[in-house]
């Protein structure tokens, strides 16, 4: 089975949802509530979280 790869470039700082079959980003929103709102009625999507910026510090441990 070929693993799914997702290219997050260009979506830094946004909340995103992926097509569950292809891994491609199909929805993006400025906040979590907006992402859930846009996802309503859509099939084949997996809601991800916020895409970090390249220079953004990432917490060690849960985060």
């Amino acid at each position, binding site marked *: *089975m070929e*693993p799914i790869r997702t290219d997050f470039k260009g979506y830094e700082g946004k909340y995103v*949802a*992926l097509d*569950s*079959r292809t891994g491609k980003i199909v929805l993006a929103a400025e906040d*979590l509530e907006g992402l*859930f709102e846009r*996802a309503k009625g859509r*099939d*084949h*999507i*997996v*809601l*991800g*979280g*916020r*895409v*970090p910026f390249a220079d953004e510090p990432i*917490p*060690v*441990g*849960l*985060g």
Partner: protein
Amino acid sequence: MPIALANGDQTTFQLTGLIDTGADSVLASDYLADQLGIDLDDHDGETTLGVGGHVAAVRYKTISIRLYPKGEDDPHIEWQAPVGFIPNWHSYGFVLLGSVGFLDQFTVTASRFAQAVAVEHRDAFDDRFGAVLVT
């Protein structure tokens, strides 16, 4: 890892679950509790955890977790587990899949070299390495 949370007839969208061997349990944003109609004042337990450098009061509720092995068109696997809801927390994923509730359900093999994660039946570990814990 595509997962969903369910409470009665309420189910979340499919969500990104992050496997976290350092997490004691399954942890999620309390935004999802709202989506599932869960009253966290009626919780099953409460504790304080360090989350991303901050201290948070986590409230647990036992609900259903669904794992979608290959995609949403395939049958999902569903089990019950306590999920700790963290106030105002969400990050690169919505759910952390930790020890109690996830790693006690499956054998998980991760390989950066293969750039893949395999989730198998929990007895797969004993089949591969022999039984370590005899009860």
